[in-house]
């Protein structure tokens, strides 16, 4: 089974970072927050600052997986008329400006299915999105939607958390076409002071089980270079969300760029000893090993 086009592009970005001796840096912003223009400027700034991949949050009225910063930003964007359409517009604007980096749409189920999933997915794909992250869609809950996502040429990222049992971890690995999103803590999005002590062992365990089949990215709580360094050593990518949104609120696109640049500096990692079991990232053939 071949990978959806968007998934391949995402994986290529991970492969590129890896080849350059870095862990990939993924930045997250809420579409249309505080307004369409600033949002575009902030997204551009994040990419200029060195983000390898950008996640664009689809604003939703009831963001149950999000902590105060992102939830408030999302709800403000909804109040300003934002939603799936505004996320699509942001993605299209970035493409129109010539950005080639992978762009993911991250959003809850309801705005995606409200007007028909197939149309929503096609619209996102034609706007230039590469993949999707749906925090309230557990792998296997809606296999028809997973099929529609792939059919639209989009990749998808499923989440695993510390209490996800091995069979479900396996399921998430097989179903994730773009990358596997590891949440190493119990909780919602939001910057934390330090990486939880259990986070690294958990991340390493997941990485081992994944065995190179799909890139592994870690997120929720990352805000400082130390976090990036610590977690980045054990992952293929690090995701920064609330910290970027907060930076935008505090100092506009310029502050976003600075923060991202700071974090990007922390992404280089020491060369790892070659592991003969590890396969290189971005190898599509791996997918043919998966059950359809």
């Amino acid at each position, binding site marked *: 089974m071949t990978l959806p086009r968007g998934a391949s592009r995402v994986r290529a970005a991970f492969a590129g970072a890896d080849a350059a001796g870095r862990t990939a840096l993924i930045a997250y912003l809420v579409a249309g927050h505080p307004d369409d223009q600033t949002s575009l400027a902030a997204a551009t700034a994040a990419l200029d600052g060195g983000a390898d991949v950008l996640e664009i949050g689809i604003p939703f009225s009831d963001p149950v997986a999000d902590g105060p910063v992102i939830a408030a930003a999302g709800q403000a964007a909804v109040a300003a008329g934002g939603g799936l359409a505004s996320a699509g517009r942001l993605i299209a604007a970035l493409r129109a400006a010539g950005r080639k980096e992978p762009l993911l749409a991250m959003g809850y189920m309801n705005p995606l299915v409200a007007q028909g999933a197939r149309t929503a997915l096609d619209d996102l794909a034609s706007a230039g999105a590469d993949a999707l992250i749906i925090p309230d869609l557990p792998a296997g809950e809606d*296999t028809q939607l997973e099929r529609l996502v792939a059919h639209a040429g989009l990749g998808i990222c499923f989440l695993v958390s510390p209490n996800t049992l091995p069979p479900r971890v396996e399921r998430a690995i097989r179903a994730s076409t773009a990358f596997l999103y590891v949440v190493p803590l119990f909780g919602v999005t939001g910057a934390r002071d330090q990486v939880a002590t259990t986070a690294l062992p958990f991340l390493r365990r997941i990485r081992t089980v994944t065995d190179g089949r799909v890139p592994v990215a870690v997120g929720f709580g990352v805000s400082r270079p130390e976090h990036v360094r610590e977690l980045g050593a054990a992952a293929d990518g690090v995701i920064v969300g609330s910290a970027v949104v907060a930076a935008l609120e505090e100092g506009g696109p310029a502050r976003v760029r600075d923060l991202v640049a700071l974090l990007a500096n922390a992404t280089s990692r020491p060369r790892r000893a070659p592991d003969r079991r590890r396969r290189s990232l971005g190898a599509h053939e791996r997918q043919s090993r998966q059950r359809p």
Partner: protein
Amino acid sequence: MKALDELVAAARVRARRDARVTPLSEVRRQVSTMAPAPRFEAALRYAPRLAVIAEVKRSSPSSGRYAAVAEGPEAAVAIVRAYAAAGATAVSILTEPTRFGGSDVDLEHSARIGAPALRKDFTVEPYQVWQARVLGAGAVLVIVRTLSDAALRALIDAAAAAGIDALVEVHDAADLERALAADATLVGVNARNLDTFAVDREASLRLLASARASGATLVAESGMSTSQDLADAADAGAHAVLIGTALLDSASPGDRLRALVAGAPERPCPTIPEHPRRVLVKTCGLRDAVGVQAAIRADADLAGFVMSAASPRAVTAAEARELASGLRTVEPVLVFRRPSATDVDAAVRTSGIDGIQLAGFEAPPPWLAGRAALDTVIGVVHRPSTVRDAVLAAEAWYSAGATHVLIEGAAIADGGGSGGTAPTNVVRGVNRILPAGIAGGLDATNVAAVVRDVRPAFVDAASGLERHGVSDPRRIGAFVRSARMDPAGADRVNARGRFGAFGGRYVPETLIQPLNELEAAWRVARRAPDYLADLRRLQRDFIGRPTPLFEVPGIAVGEAIPTGVRIFLKREDLAHTGAHKINNAVGQALLAVRMGKTRIVAETGAGQHGVATAAACALLGVKCVVFMGTTDIARQVPNVRRMHLLGAEVHPVATGNGTLRDALNEALRDWVTNVETTAYVLGSAAGPHPYPDMVAELQSVIGRESRTQLLRETGRLPDVAVASVGGGSNAIGLFRPFLDARTRLVGVEAGGRGDGLGDNAASLGLGTPGILHGAFTMLTQTVAGQVVEPHSISAGLDYPGVGPQLAALAASGRLEVTRASDSDAVEALHRMTRHAGILPALESSHALVAAARLATELSAGAIVVVNLSGRGDKDLDIVAGVEDSP
């Protein structure tokens, strides 16, 4: 043949491509959760005038582009709307894109308007038939010329299995013969030759005339544009005409159609009764008090007493009188086999039963016409070989005065009632056209599948209700319950946590394992003697169950309640803490303790669930944290105080609008963060699986007690059960134990201050499907999928979603949905307080409003039960505030 071949090939490619995205298994699964498709053929066959099927297409190979239909589904929808308003009996929607400019989306949107829709395409694979069904069509076009006999049969079978009609199109006598041999019931005679595009009206009229005798429903297609054309078609025997070009070529297709419809000739057609909303159940061959009692307890629709002496189940007319005397609302029927008029008259007179069933006749006996005074006449059609034959036979019975028709597997010569095979294929096809019951070897083990597959008007069993030759109450009860199982699955949760299409588990991954653990713990606990003993003890001694069932005078409910209509209140307001919420809180708290959790979080709107949970936690010694929106805190101060006194921490939630849904969001976030130590006690029948099912089961104590109490008090089950619906826990608690009875279930939502978005909380009545708080359900939301803050004067109904089981029951028609406004609810509160000395909560008052409304349509002896879900002390300030305001 070339153009047609190309179209067929292209259609096949399209179907195969679609099947790769949405496999047939997925299409069939979606169909299994849908309500029955509109009856296309029946609408044509039983129209009092020649029916017009109005077509929408953007172009055709013969006529080119039609300017009247712009691109985009909205254009198609606009035309269909105009057609429906202009009197079209049905519509035909082209979904073929290459030469006709059609699309599946046109059909999907147009089908929602309400006129039965035909999917006009080049159907060659069963997948396309199922696809038509999922898009909302009532019929699919099947062109004989493009198919082998085997393929034709396969497509007709697929249509039957998918629950839609097949319009089988013929052009010449050879086509017609093949169509009839394949047991087509709906035949379209196309005057246009699909190879040459030439139209030969005369030939088509001759072909129509030759098809009359077959009994098929006939449609004339192509080339008609004038009233004369319609008249000619009607004279030749057509039931309907399909018109496209003549309408789409005109400046206003709707007006053109109106003119044609006005000139459509009248045609004689038999008067066919409506299909019952739900399958009726007849328990036949009863001969003792045990069987009759069982039929009453199970709330069967009809009970049969066999009169024909040859049968082992025969009783005398006098015995039947005796047995039927206690039946109340179960309709008694005397079952005969080829009786004379005198036999029937004598039996009816002696037994006092005015319902009869007539088996053993090839055609209705002439003397039946003189017995119009009989309430029920069931005509039996014996082992018909084709659907067409069965339909003709059934029509003959209905024309002769029958009220029901039963299709039996037994041949005329054999006695019925002894098992034998039910003619499922034929009955399935018949019920697409007119209502017919089915009998033959049915029992509790097979009837649910037959109902789901065949959708009969009623089911009948005799030997299947017996054990060792006598009536078995268990089998009778099981038969009735199984027959009434909702075909779409709305009455029980399936292995995937769904009720029909609704429910599921749309939650962050972190909650999956806790939900799995909760589900596993619940599955064990609900059957565990120790858990149940603890629960029952607390229900009895802590909550104060059973709560009373109290009959109130009509005036306490409404001004114009007809005399003799009895209204009972189920007094959940008398439960500890003053509302039904305690039933669920105690059950879940007990389970949490059993699971070893030391901390409980809960959300609350009105505060009742918060108070109930705090009380249960205080008793069980568990830490309790309640999330409550700041807006709700301000309007339900007494409850907040109570929670504090009970030792709970109340966390105000100021995000969003500070109401129930924000509290729920915050509670979920807390649970996600503290998942190892904490249990989430969800307060309503909403949320991710297993909550809706678990809460429903815990609240079902309401309905179970009501059922027992009503039987004791009145000797029978209620006609109507009414409850207010916010999240749905009090409603599903009352309704669940009545799902398999004949009781009408009425859910009353908060109508707030109007029907505008955000003015009410009517998610079922005015909302649309969506996903919130872990479940696929009905929501008050914008078109773009943003949830809209609802409004209600009652905090407990102020939720933008609704429990998924209620959404499923509403979708399948088992639940009737209505709403009551803020002001009506306040008025009902005053009325009940002043005339019965009972102060209901504003939430419960909504149910009282609806009870008053529907009681006016009931007659003396009718029994209504209303869930008085809570007491209104907490609402005193609000009610006073309403009075003080201008």
